[in-house]
């Protein structure tokens, strides 16, 4: 029984967090300073997810060439920058990773 109550409360608190500002800014005008800051949420969040995935291995900075995810990620970044294509970016990144894993 406690498990179910825990799950229910955990679900409610998650839902409330996700709904928070969507609901709040329905009635109130979003302050212009905040609106300006919100423009930077996507680049900041995306980079904050990507950087540790590429640069860390088991929580430790891994800038060496044996860090295949970093190398493959750089190849993918180049493709993403030039083509703006999600499909090509993934193809290049996965291709580079498999190639490196197969060769070394």
């Amino acid at each position, binding site marked *: 029984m406690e*498990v*179910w*109550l*825990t*799950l229910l*409360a*955990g*679900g409610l*608190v*998650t*839902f409330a*967090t*996700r*709904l*928070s*500002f*969507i*609901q*709040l*800014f*329905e009635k109130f005008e*979003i302050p212009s300073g905040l*609106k*300006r*800051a*919100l*423009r*930077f*949420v*996507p*680049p*900041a*969040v*995306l*980079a*904050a*997810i*990507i*950087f*540790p995935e590429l*640069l*860390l291995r088991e*929580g430790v*900075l891994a800038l060496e060439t044996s860090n295949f*995810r970093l190398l*493959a*990620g750089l190849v*993918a*970044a180049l493709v*993403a*920058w030039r083509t*703006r*294509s*999600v*499909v090509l*970016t993934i193809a290049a*990144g*996965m291709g580079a*990773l498999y190639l490196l*894993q197969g060769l070394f």
Partner: protein
Amino acid sequence: MNASLSRRAPAPLMEFLGGIRAEMPILLGVIPFGMIVGLLAMEAGLTPAAAQAMSFIVFAGSAQFISTQLFATGAPGLVIVFTIAIVNLRHALYSASVSPYTRRLSHLWKWILAYLLTDEAYAVTITHYQQEGDASEKHWFFLGSGLALWTTWQLSTAVGIFLGAQIPASWSLDFAGTLTFIALLFPTLKDRASVGAALAGGLAAILAYGLPLRLGLVAASLVGIAVGVLIEVRLWKSG
């Protein structure tokens, strides 16, 4: 509605399918993760019904992953709920970020989209919202990406619960998710301020990686946002 109007505002179905398509590559990485979370929930001693209900009720990968570890060690329910709240704090940031676009939607729409507001759905949806063009039907794109993820998450945790996790880690499927985020990052780099926000956010995430409960992501995002705003204000003053 005349022809030129309908060309500018794609039909809801087109947006909905576009959202599903945009979510596809991320799903590759979500499937093995969901299987592991399902398997861990069983190993933590939850019944299959409770393990599946967790995906349905909580619907948050990182929070579920950490919860299973807490269930396994017999942590009190309140501790688990509190942990879930902290791990999901970052979603408040996403909520603020999409709020300018959801204002005019009905309550039902807001509630459904809030329930579906995960990292994965947010990433593809916000970049779509920020593209040029009529945004009046883009909530259908949000719904498509959110439901694609939701369905995949329910199925993959179910597979983990009943069959176990069977995709070898050497396939590196999770890397497809990272690559998708890389592809989504570049269109958001529109000027010096947004590049600064990304660099600062990324570097701060490295420094803050040791923080527990995904607080590093929250802290790093706030640092990135602050740096973006600072650069913009400076440029505006000097220009």
